[in-house]
């Protein structure tokens, strides 16, 4: 039963990775990264529950903390990068999204 849950979680992981690969804008990819992190945490928790080992749960914790720090930094730097462009925003809004 737990193996079926693992397979389903891996399938979800794969679909989240597809959003990371094809997302049209950077922020789509970032939300995909967040989804991948949560799915990996769930996989680790299930793995620990199968093996009946408690120290594997530390990994879930450190994954949560490190993934969150990395994602927040990427968001900060992205909003900084495009702020100047937003002020000069005129008719070229379409090319903005293509440039990403």
């Amino acid at each position, binding site marked *: 039963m737990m193996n079926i849950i693992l397979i389903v979680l891996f399938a979800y992981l794969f679909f989240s990775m597809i959003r990371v690969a094809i997302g049209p804008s950077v*922020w*789509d990819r970032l939300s*995909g990264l*967040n*989804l991948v992190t949560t799915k990996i945490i769930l996989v680790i928790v299930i793995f620990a*529950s199968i093996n009946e080992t408690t120290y594997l749960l530390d990994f879930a914790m450190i994954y949560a903390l490190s993934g969150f720090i990395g994602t927040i930094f990427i968001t900060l730097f992205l909003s900084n990068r495009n702020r100047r462009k937003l002020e000069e925003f005129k008719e070229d809004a379409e090319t*903005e999204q293509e440039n990403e």
Partner: protein
Amino acid sequence: MLEYISFAIMGLGLIFMFFGIVGIMQPNKDFYYRLLVTCKIDTVGIITFFIGLAVRHGISFFTGKIVLILIIMLILNPLVTHMVARSAYRGGYVSKDELEKRKLR
């Protein structure tokens, strides 16, 4: 008996996450649509899933750690969603409706 109840709760969490995956795989929608649908439902799925695991292991050290991770995820997952949406709003993401409005002006 307790084991079957826990599997049922975990299956419910998996179903919630399935809706989240369906939400993020919408090709013709905006980014805000996908973010709204996915990240809320994903948090609900995590909570349900961890409650199921806690039921499976009873009152033990494992359950205590699970509750700790649940609290961390409950704090951090909405924060990440908030930061991503905020960065998209401040960083110049333009949705389709907004684009058409600006063209009409």
